[in-house]
């Protein structure tokens, strides 16, 4: 049974029309692959919600800052949509093809020697193309309170199943 990522994501979010939702429910009963992909979506969503709860990314400013870090290639990519749903404010998520991601560090500043030095910050993702899979770019806390850039790929269609 072939079910697109977009369809599963809409089903997971309860936004699929009744007829297609019935088809997915039938598929879930008879195809382990569909069940596994739905479980992956649920787990990914739980993880993001946990992260939001732990980090308190809740104020409008923080959500906008987080949203700027999130990139997605497709408008309805499953994993990206979950991240975006958790992090983004409307219109703040940049759709990407082979495009830049708006998490570049500030402009270089001059050192005391007059040389241009990069301002401290996490690794900047200049461009990303997630190909056929949904994905997201975000940051988590690393060592010494620094931020580490994460590129997360939704590989739920993998033979080995992501989650």
């Amino acid at each position: 049974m072939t079910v697109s990522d977009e369809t599963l994501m809409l089903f997971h979010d309860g936004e699929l029309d009744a007829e297609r939702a019935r088809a997915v429910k039938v598929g879930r009963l008879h195809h382990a692959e569909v069940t596994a992909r739905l479980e992956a979506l649920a787990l990914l969503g739980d993880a993001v919600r946990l992260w939001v709860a732990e980090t308190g990314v809740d104020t409008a400013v923080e959500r906008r800052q987080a949203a700027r870090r999130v990139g997605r290639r497709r408008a309805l990519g499953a994993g990206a949509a979950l991240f975006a749903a958790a992090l983004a404010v409307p219109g703040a998520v940049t759709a990407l093809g082979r495009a830049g991601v708006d998490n570049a560090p500030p402009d270089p500043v001059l050192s005391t020697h007059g040389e241009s030095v990069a301002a401290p910050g996490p690794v900047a993702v200049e461009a990303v193309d997630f190909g056929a899979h949904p994905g997201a770019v975000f940051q988590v806390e690393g060592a010494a309170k620094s931020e580490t850039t994460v590129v997360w790929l939704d590989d739920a269609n993998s033979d080995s199943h992501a989650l």
Partner: protein
Amino acid sequence: MQTPTATRSSRPSAERLGASAATERAEAVVELMVLHATHQKRGIDARLRHLPELTQGPFAAFDTYRLLERAELRLRRGDKPTHRLPNGRVLGTELIALEKGGAVRLVASISEPGGSAFLPLLEVRAQRGQRFIVAGQGYLRGILVLVLTLMPAAAER
């Protein structure tokens, strides 16, 4: 530890110039750690305790992290070193530019065994000592977590 292999170089090969690749100075070195995240309730490998990221965000959804391998990708402009991952896919890297201020611009990609692209393009700009993570590929009831660290200049000998 798997040895990275250089492919598709636009420069004359080191062998033809009479110098071995081992003695050729890298312009940047990326340390690659390949981790396996699962739900086996075995905790985090002691060798990974320096990675607080593994307890943050989506990574916290996994309770077990094991270090599968560690490798060095020695980068020079024009070279495209690759590294085969445990799931059969291939991680490709390429040094794009060394910028003023010490920043390094590099490109990574992940290809399927058949050659088609899984992650067609990831271009980043990093300072030496910084790391970034590429995670989410399915592998043996878990996921692979690739931790890529741009090593200090001293590693480029």
